[in-house]
């Protein structure tokens, strides 16, 4: 009770007072600082209370900075300048240390000053009348509908809006690029934001046209990246559009020649980007997104492409999302997927191809989950924030931290020592996942952390024979590709611009190249794999049944029973990692021959 009383109001710590005094060149004793702090808090409360009357008389529910300033002015205190914006300034959190700050974007004054066409900030105030209730009954007309205000936009803005939408949705790719670029950097289009958001929400009506969908997503991306726009409540609308592209069985996905996967990947990437940069504008957003993704994933009636979208969406939202939603759901989902994958009928070929897509996506997601788990378990990283926020780690941090735990493992002396504390949960998780994915999981881990040098043959055990054999054929390709897969999740998830990607990647690789840590990492998963002697055997039967019998390949071999012989194996091995690269940016693998279904 007393505790609560103490916290009835926000209190200013005396340290802050002392810091402020120091910055003004005054030394304060503890007592004075405490007294001052208390007085300042009281004055703040008083001013806040006084300011509420201005809010009430302005017929608002929200207290603004203006109200507060008025209260200050009337009590003869200097007003606080520079925060007069009507919109709330969102606080951003810094994870290290519980620190929140307001983003203060730099304004390019030169650009502002030299701008030639300065559009008016907002539309003219107008009064519109309509009969709401006739004889006390019925609503005749929706009141205050936003689009009706379009006509009240200034001509300049209207023109801009028309030009941009035309350019983006038109035929000229060059023009589109310019328009998107401008949309990304124009500081004066705040008034148009609702309209652009509205345009983006048009995805629902063009679901047959991949190209259009793509372009609309590009608009969304530009809007997100525009530093002058405060998305505010429009975040919701944008998210719903993007989620639509990620999750819905689009009309465009009926034709197998349409590469709607790329679109989904891109949309998932956008989803994570919106969330990371603007998620703080809408409370509870994270849970809502997770919930809808989970709903899709749990719905067996939905087509596989929807499931695929849900998986890449989760993957894009970070490994914690994967852990929370995908992982617990995997066992039930697996049964369905397995049924699809095991059906060899010709009519099922298309569905099965889709199934492989989903399989690949899940594989990538859980691999990353495992990796992050392993890192976390290694104890090197102060995992997440201490306050257990519902938001997972920012991916950027994941990217930076990629090499660190490995280093620790290597430097930590005995690999067993590093492993022992987290062994339990990680171990269980790994074992369970291994049950699903079999060797493909293990191999990808193994090679992913390997330098792109030829594989030294692992210590021979009978169980590992097939792996070694399969790896032999792919020896040239595998390490490189899986290495990139290991590095790719952070780069693709990261909302940061390409610049960052180029820096994070080499770092991760560089870390991976360092000698000494490799055996450690290797040991983690080897131990996991082989310590429980019974499990691998069992999972091998499930996952690697076909492979063991026919082609001595790995799990994926099961999908292509028509191929025989080592030649096919190697050919398949070339394609294999493609599954793992689903989250890669769209343009990279827009080339059709890389798509899996063409194999068939």
């Amino acid at each position, binding site marked *: *009770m*007393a505790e609560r*009383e103490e916290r*009835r*109001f926000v209190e200013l710590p005396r340290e802050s007072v002392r810091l402020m005094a120091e910055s003004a060149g005054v030394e304060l004793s503890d007592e004075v600082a405490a007294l001052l702090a*208390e*007085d300042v808090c*009281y004055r703040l*409360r*008083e001013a806040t*209370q006084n300011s509420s*009357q*201005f809010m*009430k*008389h*302005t*017929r*608002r*529910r*929200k207290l603004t900075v*203006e109200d507060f300033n*008025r209260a200050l002015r*009337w*009590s003869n205190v200097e007003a606080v300048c520079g925060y007069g914006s*009507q919109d709330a300034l969102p606080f951003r959190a810094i994870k290290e240390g519980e620190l929140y700050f307001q983003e203060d974007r730099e304004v390019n004054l030169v650009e502002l000053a030299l701008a030639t066409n300065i559009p008016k900030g*907002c*539309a*003219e*105030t*107008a*009064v*519109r*009348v*309509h*009969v*709401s*209730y*006739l*004889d*006390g*009954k019925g*609503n005749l007309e*929706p*009141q*205050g*509908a*936003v689009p*009706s*205000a379009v006509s*009240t936009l200034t001509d300049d803005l209207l023109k801009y809006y028309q030009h941009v939408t035309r350019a983006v949705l038109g035929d000229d790719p060059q023009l589109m690029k310019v328009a998107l670029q401008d949309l990304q950097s124009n500081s004066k289009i705040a008034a148009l934001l609702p309209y652009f958001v509205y345009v983006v929400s048009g995805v629902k009506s063009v679901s047959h046209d991949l190209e259009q969908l793509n372009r609309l997503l590009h608009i969304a991306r530009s809007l997100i990246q525009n530093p002058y726009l405060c998305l505010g*409540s429009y975040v919701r609308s944008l998210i719903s559009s993007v989620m639509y592209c990620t999750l819905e069985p689009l009309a465009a996905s009926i034709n197998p020649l349409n590469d709607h996967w790329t679109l989904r990947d891109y949309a998932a990437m956008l989803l994570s980007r919106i969330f990371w940069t603007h998620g703080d504008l809408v409370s509870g957003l994270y849970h809502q997104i997770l919930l809808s993704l989970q709903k899709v994933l749990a719905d067996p009636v939905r087509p596989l492409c929807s499931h695929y979208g849900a998986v890449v969406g989760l993957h894009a939202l970070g490994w914690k999302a994967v852990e929370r939603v995908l992982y617990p759901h995997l066992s039930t989902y697996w049964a369905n997927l397995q049924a699809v994958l095991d059906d060899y009928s010709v009519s099922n070929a298309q569905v099965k191809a889709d199934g492989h897509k989903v399989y690949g996506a899940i594989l990538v997601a859980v691999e990353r989950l495992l990796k992050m788990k392993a890192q976390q378990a290694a104890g090197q990283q102060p995992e997440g924030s201490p306050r257990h926020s519902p938001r997972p780690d920012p991916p950027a941090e994941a990217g930076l931290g990629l090499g660190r735990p490995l280093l620790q493992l290597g430097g930590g002396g005995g690999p067993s020592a590093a492993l022992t504390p987290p062994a339990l949960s990680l171990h269980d998780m790994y074992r369970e996942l291994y049950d699903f994915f079999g060797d493909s999981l293990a191999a990808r881990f193994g090679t992913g952390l390997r330098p792109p040098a030829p594989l030294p043959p692992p210590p021979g055990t009978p169980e590992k024979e097939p792996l070694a054999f399969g790896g032999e054929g792919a020896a040239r390709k595998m390490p490189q590709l899986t290495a990139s897969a290991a590095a790719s999740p952070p780069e693709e998830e990261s909302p940061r611009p390409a610049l960052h990607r180029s820096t994070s990647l080499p770092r991760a690789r560089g870390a991976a190249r360092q000698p000494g840590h490799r055996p450690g990492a290797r040991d983690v998963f080897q131990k996991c794999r082989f310590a429980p002697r019974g499990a691998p055997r069992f999972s091998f039967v499930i996952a690697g049944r076909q492979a063991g019998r026919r082609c001595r390949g790995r799990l994926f071999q099961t999908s292509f029973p028509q191929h025989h012989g080592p030649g096919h194996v190697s050919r398949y091995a070339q394609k294999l990692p493609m599954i793992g690269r689903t989250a890669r940016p769209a343009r990279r693998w827009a080339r059709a021959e890389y798509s899996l279904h063409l194999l068939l």
Partner: protein
Amino acid sequence: MAAVAEEPPEVAAVKPDPEAGTPPQPPAAAPPTAAAAATAPAAPPAPAAEGEAAGNGGDAAAAAKAAAPGPAASPAALDRQTLVAVLQFLRRSNLRESEEILRREARLLGDDLGAAALSPTGAGLLGAAGGEGDVGGSEALLNRVTAAAAISIGGSVATVASASPGVAAAAAVPPGKGGGALVVEDQPDVSAVLSAYNQQGDPTLYEEYYSGLKNFIECSLDCHRAELSQLFYPLFVHMYLELVYNQHESEAKSFFERFHGDQECYYQDDLRVLSSLTKKEHMKGNETMLDFRTSKFVLRISRDSYQLLKRHLQEKQNNQIWNIVQEHLYIDIFDGMPRSKQQIDAMVGSLAGEAKREANKAKVFFGLLKEPEFDVPLDDEDEEGENEEGKPKKKKPKKDSVGSKSKKQDPNAPPQNRIPLPELKDSDKLDKVMNVKEAARRVRLGPECLPSICFYTFLNAYQGLTAVDITDDSSMIVGGFADSTVRVWSVTPKKLRSVKAAADLSLIDKESDDVLERIMDEKTASELKILYGHSGPVYGTSFSPDRNYLLSCSEDGTVRLWSLQTFTCLVGYKGHNYPVWDTQFSPYGYYFVSGGHDRVARLWATDHYQPLRIFAGHLADVTCTRFHPNSNYIATGSADRTVRLWDVLNGNCVRIFTGHKGPIHSLAFSPNGRFLATGATDGRVLLWDIGHGLMVGELKGHTDTIYALRFSRDGEILASGSMDNTVRLWDAVKAFEDLETDDFTTATGHINLPENSQDLLLGTYMTKSTPVVHLHFTRRNLLLAAGAYSSQ
């Protein structure tokens, strides 16, 4: 000496009202504490007395305490007080000799007097070491006390005074300051007010006292418990403030913690303010605190309950609480049955308790003024209009109705010339005729026939719509905005035009028939006119009845009068100096009222730059103001959660309505002038019978502040608009139908409200996302609502 002799009449004024009577001897109780506070800072300049004071400190305080509560001791205490005050004064004036003489004289009266005389010093040394800050204020108080003392000694001290010429001179001074003291009494000085808390009780006992009383009340009979429970809140507040004032911070905190949960929920806002108050220094500028101190909290308690309380307190020797009851509370005792909890709850909630009964006894002329008879040419015009529309048949009955209506003299109406009203101009008469014609086509509203609602939505009002008004004939709408602009729109096809410039006007043929048309400048025609002039948000707007003027009031402390002929500002009325929250024209024009943050409402006439009346009495901001339809009264709603009715003629407050639990933001008189509807932040509409001064209804349903209230033209329907984005219609006829206005209710003010909100609610109408800021019934009873669309 003569001056002294003249003073007694003023003494009565200084002393608390003797006929308030019930607290046995308020004068006796008040001075000791006041004097104690006053002397505290004065102690240092009197080193001679200090040793003695320190020695006597302990029992001095005890003596002072003992003297305070006992009603029997009052004459002696009074004498002592006066002596103390005179001694103080002498000491301050460095009249040692006289002081000595007086003291010697005083000793003759009794030994204990010496101790009593010094007790303030002792108390000062003990308790108010930190009191240095308010030396200046205490001086004023000291003057007051000294003056009062000198005066009240009157003849008795005269002998003392004559004994020494020095004292005579000294005594001659205070009367001069007596006048000043009266002013101080009217506008209490801040620190003087505060220092009244400077009485020393054991801070650790406060909780005990309070819980003791609590136990007593909770164990008392049911019928008394509800009444006595009213004591909790004021006692709690005053005890808390006393603790804070005497710098027992931790005790104050634990006291608050322990008992704030017991208080009624409608005091939450005040409690929040209180809880932030933990330092003596903070009390100075705190308005809520001052409100508490400057006004006595009024409780209405039956005689039985009061006797019970009094006996208990005397038995328990609970002096601390008894002091508070005497000094800070006004207990309005009535004979008869104690009230029930519901009855009490309906009436309490305001900042200073309920209204005293006698506050609502004055006669109010709530009837309507007689409408002027229309003379023949106007009738012709009327007829002409009818002919134009080709319905001459209707003329007869309507004329009758007009005649009968205007001939009937309301017995409750004020004399026609009670306050001077402007002469009707020809254009006004024309308008009245129009009004009558429209009224003939008015829809008869009722539960079966609800009005249609038109919504005026302000789009793109990013700058914040703060006030709206619509002309009586619904031809123009004005919006006041937070960006200091006032925008006037024409809502008819007729555009707004201003008059031509002077040079152009001189060219016009003044004899022509359409001269009124010719003077308008066609070039300026537009749908919207923006009026710039204010330098703060515009909180209130009002059209004059003749539509030639517009009033706006703003945060910048001014009320501005705009011409709707030229669309320029004519006058800026300065007087409030603080934000002006509301303003309204009288229904007859010429006068207007404004109310603001300075806690007063002012009555102005458009041709005077100074206010004609200042209505002072509210304990917090005056948030809304409305004229009675007969223009003789003004209703004001305030943040102190009371509504007051003021007489324009003499500026008296004739009604105080308590019962709202939040600041009042809307008022509406019924068209017949008998009733008043008020809406507040608590989301309730209360209905009041003005003649009897009683609450007659409570309309619950809104979930947020009610910013707009309006009766339909014939008073059948009450419309309320709120922040919760709804307009609600209430059956006013039914609400006022069978009122319990028997003599008993009127005499006692005990009301029994029926729980019938749901029966009275005729409809709830949602907007999409638009808080309703203004409501208006057109002359044909179409309901117009207005507000700004808010996207969130």
